[in-house]
């Protein structure tokens, strides 16, 4: 009984929505420039969604993503202003984010606290820390070439880094023991523990990894903004979680696919960009976005249910 991968549904939705906008505004929407722009606009949500896939696969959730991205841009800007060269500064900033993730993971994995609460607290605390660190201002810093990360062409290294990270995590989930353990923890934590898996360690690793990815996303965000902005990315976490859920992962854990999450992130970007190209008022776009999210997932549900029955028949 070969199963269709979970990301097929979202992919179909993505293609349909894309085709819709392409048909409505062919002269602007189909430009290669627009494709590139959409790709660049998906980078931050996409990278975060890859990390969030891990978290949600363990049955957790991370509400601190937006704050973490903002925090990273501030740390990075501070480092650049202090004269640290671009690459080490970016690495240190991402590592700082990873460190926060390790702390969150320890609270979730060892102290067995609820991820929602821990990351809700972290969300607020990190936002405050970012503002404090930035003296409540945007921090202007010479990007020292980091802005080329997301240059406006296909050679933009940021795009390739994103793709590489997604493929890496995809492979880790699919081909390594750790990947199996991630799903095991989310599917039935008691069973995982019974099998001798150190579920706490798995969670620490997952939150560290996903925060590290949020850190990388923060570097990308800085590459776009070229300032460290403590008020950046408010609400980003919901968008990221939406991407993962649209990509087919249930919040109850035990499932999820990197491919699906990336497709979910792309779908959100396409809807948003398409709205701009159509010249729809913002409020119409918001209504459309909401409707499309619900319909996309509903269609996927129906399709899957029918698939199960058809496969059954």
């Amino acid at each position: 009984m070969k199963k269709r991968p979970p990301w097929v549904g979202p992919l179909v939705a993505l293609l349909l929505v894309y085709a819709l906008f392409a048909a409505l505004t062919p002269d602007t929407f189909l430009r290669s420039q627009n494709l590139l722009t959409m790709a660049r606009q998906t980078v931050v949500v996409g990278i975060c969604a890859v990390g969030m896939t891990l978290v949600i696969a363990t049955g957790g959730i991370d509400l601190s993503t937006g704050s973490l991205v903002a925090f990273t841009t501030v740390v990075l800007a501070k480092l650049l202003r202090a004269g640290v060269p671009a690459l080490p500064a970016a690495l240190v900033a991402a590592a700082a984010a990873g460190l926060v993730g390790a702390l969150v993971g320890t609270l979730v994995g060892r102290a067995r606290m609820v991820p929602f609460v821990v990351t809700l607290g972290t969300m607020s605390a990190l936002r405050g820390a970012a503002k404090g660190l930035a003296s409540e201002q945007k921090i202007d810093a010479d990007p020292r070439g980091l802005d080329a990360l997301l240059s406006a062409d296909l050679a933009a290294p940021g795009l390739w880094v994103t793709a590489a990270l997604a493929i890496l995590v995809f492979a880790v989930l699919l081909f390594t023991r750790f990947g199996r353990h991630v799903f095991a923890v989310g599917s039935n934590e008691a069973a995982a523990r019974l099998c001798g898996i150190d579920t706490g360690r798995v969670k620490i690793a997952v939150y560290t990894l996903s925060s590290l990815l949020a850190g990388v996303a923060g570097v990308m965000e800085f590459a776009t903004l070229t300032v460290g902005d403590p008020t950046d990315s408010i609400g980003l976490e919901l968008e990221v979680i939406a991407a993962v859920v649209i990509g087919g992962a249930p919040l109850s854990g035990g499932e999820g696919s990197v491919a699906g999450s990336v497709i979910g992130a792309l779908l959100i970007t396409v809807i948003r960009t398409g709205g701009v190209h159509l010249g729809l008022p913002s409020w119409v776009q918001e209504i459309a976005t909401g409707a499309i999210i619900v319909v996309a997932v509903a269609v996927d549900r129906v399709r899957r249910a029918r698939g199960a029955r058809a496969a059954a028949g």
Partner: protein
Amino acid sequence: MGGERAPLLEVTGLAKAFGPNPVLRDVSLRVAPASIHALLGENGAGKSTLARVLLGMERADAGAILLGGARYAPASAEEARRAGVVLVPQERTLCAHLTVVDNVVLGIEPLARARLGIRDRSRARAVARAAIALVTADPGRVPLDARAGELGVADQQLVEIARALAQGGLREDGRLAARLLVLDEPTSSLGRSDAVRLFERVRALRDAGLAVLLVTHFLSDVRAHADRYTALRDGRVAGEGDPRETEPAQIVREMLGRALNDTRASADTRASAETRAGAVSEAARPDGGEVVLEAEGVSGVKRPKRASLTLRRGEILGIAGLVGSGRTELLRILAGLDPRRGGTVALRAPRGIGLLSEDRGGEGLMLGRSLAENVWLSPRAPRFARPRSLLTEGARWIERLAIRAGGPEQRVGELSGGNQQKVQIARLLREDVDVLLVDEPTRGIDVASKAQVLALLRELARAGKAIVLVSSQLDELVTTCDRIAVLRRGTLDPPRPASSWTEASLLLEASS
């Protein structure tokens, strides 16, 4: 006598498939009113599926059902209940967060003010107490205000049966308003005394006019209590008759499509003198294998109170005890899963220790993941795992344990209860640990598989593993173990050779 009367339930040509796999092909069945009708069959034969169709939880693809002569095609459990059909499902379905009382009266809450929907708590309590009193000899054992999730598996099973009785319209005089009670392996996790009590009740209900469809793997119970049986094989009816007039071997042949070649395997049909002798002679292997596990004065949070044991390579140590005596907790402490209050545990096993849980849905298996992944799951697995190799491994175990599944990719949650149990066993075997703690390993598996699993345990012991076996099937302990110790209200007596025990003496010792 039953066959002559107009049947209460008449199933004709029922078919049901999941995906490409037909589960029920062409099942026809007549259940007479006021009778106990046993439904038998191998794991995965389709018994539970049939039960679920009767309850409106699955839709049949073809066929017709008549209940009391009228067409019956329920779309939900609620509709089935209104037609007078209630079910005790095979897998535990309680609301873990609700109290025992709330679980028993769920959906039939007595109301103090019907218009406002305000519950009548004292009446709910009375209903729950009465229902539980019907199913256990020791009703005090099940605290009415405890959350269902805090109960042991056996007590949960009792609550579930009580719930079905209550929902079937239990009346003051102990009679049921329901017409058909479907019991899917109600005794698989009950101790002997509870099972006896349950069957007393079921017979009384039968005598009061209720029809009972009983799914079970215990042929002895079928012979002792059922009026008729139907054997399913591969989704078809393979035989039926009066169990008292049919040879057990004949029934087994109908179920399996072949004879059971290993006689010891009919453990269930009460160990005969010869088989006992066989087991003992087998156990008479060179004694004094190296000690791998030594526990001294172990106590847990609640149970056990005091348990000491020494386990050597090559032996199977049985632990007998009543439900709630703390057997499961002892195993969990030995495995390091539950906190130890006192005492010492010394493990000298380079390959480690593994536990087979009695609660396969709760903590034994990842129901949402594939069979292959479940079998493969282990911290000692290789660091890299190609999906292909997982599947090969899964396929190997499907063959080795004759697991009935669509393939290694199938979700474990879609397997029949007995086949899920086999997946759990496969996982433990694959891990290849030195010390195996097995808690009710034969729960819900069919006669043939039961024989196979017990034989496997003996084989493993011969190969140098050390095994602790907990089972509520005393015959299983007597035929399989080398030594048996009795756990009584949390205190473990020193073990004695299995040959010095009989089922009766074990039962006497455990309940003294």
